[in-house]
Each structure stands twice: as structure tokens, then as C-alpha cells.
């Protein structure tokens, strides 16, 4: 039957694709789709969680990821193009950002001495891109340096920054949500990349300068930080 055939098509396609890595919640494959270098992100069934919870989360995240990627693209923010989505196997076919590396790997491979000054243009670029994303009311939900890709430009060294992994994203105009989004990044950034406090400050500064609504967001960020510090640790 046609339905059965199409249900089997994706797993068969993936069985021939190259498994690139197992990410935080998905298997990421490299393949060619309609002649283009493609990344397939398959949110496979997580056996550890209850089937009803798994189905709900997986479906919601696939939908959210596609939705936010499209919204960002429309706003001119660099994200991979969505080529195809299959909701039965929860697979998203994305443009492969060829020759890119994660911002995490980029920072980790730069010598500690250059970790601040040499990386300042990158930090500023990240701040600007996040400001644009928040001005579109997209809350990423999982901002880390693993979820940003850097594609180095040809010779001139101009590189392009892409945002990826929008599974936990949602739409909100609230400064609180944007502040929490930045707080999540701040903690991930500083724990992943020790001794980069000054670099992160640069990022925030460029965010503040680039976003139209940044003052309320930065105020919320400070509030959220304080809440963390005041939290009881009893028990």
C-alpha cells in the first residue's frame, strides 16, 4: 500500500545515510536530498520515557523547530533551510551548513590567550543575531555554543553565524522569557568556556545595542540571576 510504502521510505532512506552524531535529543544524519547536501534530524523514540509523554514532546518539538526556523528565515536571520518534514518519523531535512563548525568547537580550539580579544568579533556577532531573533519574538529555549554554527568565509575571513536546534523554541514578546533565554546562554557559555566573563559581557553589550527592546530584557536577566543566587539549598 502507498501509505505503508511512504512510512517505510524515511527509515530506509536513513539506513543509507551517514550517521553524523547523536545530539541532545536527535540522531543527526548527513545525506543527499534532491541533489543537495542535507542534514536529517531524526527525533527517534526515547525508550526511557512513557510513550504518551514521548509522542507529545517529540511531535511538539518537531513542529516548533520547523515553525521557528521559518520565522527566523523570513526575518533574514541565518538558519538552515528546511527542505522537508516527515511527522510520522519526526524527521526534519535541513540544508547542511557545509564546512561549518560549532561555536563551541571554535572557541575551544582557539588558544586560551586569544580566548578573549581574538573572539570579540564573534561575541559581538552572536549578540547581534540574538537581538534580531528576540526582536522577532522567537525564544530559542536552548541557547548554547553547540547550537550555533560558524561557516568560515572564503578567503577574506568573513564568517557567517547560523542558529540551529529550535526544538525548545516558542514565540513570546515577554522580556522575562527573553531574559531567561539569555540567562540559559550565560550559564552554558561560562561553564563550557572558563574565564570568558569579559567575552560574554561583550556579547551582552552588542545585544543591548542591537535590540530595540533590550533594556527591559537586560533588567529581567539581572532579576533572574539574582533569583538563582537567592534560591534556598535546603535538604
Amino acid at each position: 500500500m502507498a501509505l505503508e510504502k511512504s512510512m517505510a521510505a524515511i527509515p530506509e532512506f536513513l539506513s543509507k545515510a551517514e550517521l553524523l552524531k547523536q545530539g541532545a535529543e536527535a540522531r543527526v544524519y548527513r545525506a543527499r536530498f534532491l541533489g543537495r547536501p542535507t542534514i536529517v534530524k531524526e527525533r527517534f523514540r526515547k525508550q526511557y520515557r512513557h510513550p504518551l509523554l514521548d509522542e507529545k514532546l517529540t511531535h511538539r518539538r518537531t513542529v516548533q523547530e520547523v515553525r521557528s526556523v521559518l520565522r527566523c528565515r523570513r526575518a533574514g536571520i541565518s538558519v538552515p533551510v528546511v527542505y522537508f518534514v516527515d511527522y510520522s518519523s519526526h524527521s526534519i531535512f535541513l540544508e547542511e551548513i557545509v564546512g561549518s563548525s560549532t561555536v563551541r568547537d571554535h572557541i575551544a580550539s582557539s588558544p586560551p590567550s586569544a580566548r578573549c580579544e581574538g573572539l570579540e568579533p564573534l561575541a559581538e556577532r552572536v549578540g547581534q543575531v540574538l537581538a534580531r531573533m528576540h526582536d522577532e519574538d522567537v525564544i530559542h529555549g536552548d541557547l548554547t555554543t553547540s547550537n550555533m554554527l560558524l561557516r568560515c568565509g572564503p578567503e577574506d575571513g568573513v564568517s557567517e553565524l547560523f542558529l540551529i536546534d529550535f526544538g525548545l523554541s516558542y514565540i513570546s514578546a515577554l522580556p522575562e522569557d527573553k531574559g531567561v533565554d539569555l540567562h540559559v546562554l550565560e550559564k552554558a557559555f561560562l561553564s563550557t568556556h572558563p574565564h570568558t566573563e569579559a567575552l560574554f559581557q561583550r556579547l551582552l553589550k552588542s545585544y543591548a545595542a542591537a535590540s530595540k527592546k533590550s533594556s527591559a530584557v537586560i533588567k529581567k536577566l539581572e532579576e533572574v540571576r539574582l533569583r538563582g543566587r537567592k534560591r534556598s539549598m535546603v535538604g
Partner: protein
Amino acid sequence: MTIVIGFEGSANKIGIGIIRDGEVLSNPRRTYITPPGQGFLPSDTARHHRAVILTVLKEALEQAGLKPADIDCVAFTKGPGMGSPLVTVALVARTVAQLWGKPLLGVNHCIGHIEMGRLITQADNPTVLYVSGGNTQVIAYSERRYRIFGETIDIAVGNCLDRFARVIKISNDPSPGYNIEQMAKKGSQYVELPYTVKGMDVSFSGITSYIEEAAHKMISSGQCSAEDLCFSLQETVFSMLVEITERAMAHCGSGEVLIVGGVGCNLRLQEMMGVMCKERNAKLFATDERFCIDNGAMIAQAGWEMFRSGQVTELEDSWITQRYRTDEVEVTWRD
């Protein structure tokens, strides 16, 4: 040969343990148990600890077959935790250190859990999930710190479970979490509950208020049983914990997980974490209630590592603190 005695009493457990070069010589403990529906208050808990601490100390020395002269260092919990129980236990530790003429060491409670877990399981460089009544953190080591990659943005997972137990009057003996775990085994119907994950962080305040509000109505209307709620609550909050642990592992490129803290002895949590690990070819390390739940040996073990790397705490610096983040401590004993 280095022998360290550790004093722990930051919450409702009072424990004293003795460690000799990686060997647990003794580790007696008492728990302050309150009636169903009641949590433990700082002053009552401190009173409980005061009443039993000397008995526990005697047990620790006797079971180890040691005299005070054999001890090299006296370690105690500096924080985080409840103020008055911490003060009570630190006072006794300071007193015996002076009586015996031994150096003191103030230990971060969370570091105690991590070092005990590493000792017992021999995990080398794991991503650590630290889950207890007061803390929920995902931790990984790098450049001389245990760095916090994820944590709760409001209340701890153990606090969520304890509050639910209080609402439906589940016994606190031996612990509310243990009794929820047993009841959950008899639950079958999955009730949908709020699920909140933000990157590597989690939030438990939403699910806690929801279930506090709805529990009685759902049970009395026959919509589900208390056992079903225990089951659904565990399935939901543990899924959140496994998810953020996995996210941190992917981000850090880690292939090992260590679960520590009182909630960490829950076998369902261990089972779920084990399935996740299998799906990504990682290894799971966990311990049982002797070492997961607050105890004195864990403070002795962290103290042993610190002492061996040259640290001591002077008497005038031997104060306690209710807030003390895991990443404040410089880890002088690892590369």
C-alpha cells in the same frame, strides 16, 4: 596512610563517617522523621541532631576500631543547607578537633556527594546528576572546577516529591521519596502533568503547584488513584532529569553519567537513566542508599581529597553558610 572523619548534618540526616585511603571504615547515621503531612523545621532538626550526635560519634569510632589519636583530620559540612543544623554539627566538629589537636576542614556538601560517588563507582570523569531535597544540578568537571551546566531554576526535585507526599499524607518513614517510589510501582494510568525544560535547566514549581492543587480532586472524583499520581509524577520529573542530563552529555561530549544525592537511589530514575545511556553507548554509575543519601563518609572522602592536596581550614574560618555553590570550590585534587 590518611584517616579522615567527616561530620554531616545539613538537613534531616546526621551522619559521621571515617575514611582511610578510599576505604569506608564506618558510616553510622540517624534520620529525623516527622509525622505525615509535616516537613522538618530547622530548630527541631538541630535539636534532633544535638540529642544523638555524641552517640553517633561513639559508634563511628567503635565500628572503625579507632581511637581519636588515629584520626588525621576532622572534616565537617560548611554548607549549603539549613542554618541551625549546620551550626550544631560544625560546633561539635570544632570541639573535637581542638580536643584531639587535629586540623579542621570545611567541606562543600555537594562536592562530598560527587567525591563519594566517584570513589564508590570508580567513575573517572562523569557528567554528574546531583538530585536531592534541596538541590538539582547537572555538573561536569573542567579546569579545576565542578561546573554547573544545568540546574533547577526554582525548587529542587526532592522538594517537589516531598511536597506532593505531604499533600496526600504519605509517610516520611524512611523517606517520602522512598514511599512514593513504592506506591508508583502499583500505579498504571499515566496522568498528563506540566513538563518544563529550558535548555539544560528545569523547573519544578509549575508541576508542584499543579499537583498540589489537583491531587485531592483527581483522587476523590475517581479520575485516578494516589498510586497513579505517584507513577505519573515520577515518570514526568525523572524524564525531565534524564533529558537535561543527556543534553549536557551531548554538549560536553561525555560518555559517563554518575547519579548522586538522596533522589539518586530511586531505582526507577536509575533505570530510566540506564536506558538513555544505552541509547547513546554511555555508561551509568549509581550507588545505593548508604552512599546516595546524606552521610558522614562523603564529607570524610571529600575532606580526604582536600587534605591530601594540602588544604586545611583555620579555626577562625570554620564558619558555615546556607548558600554555597558547587562551582565556588577550587578543585585542588584533580588535574
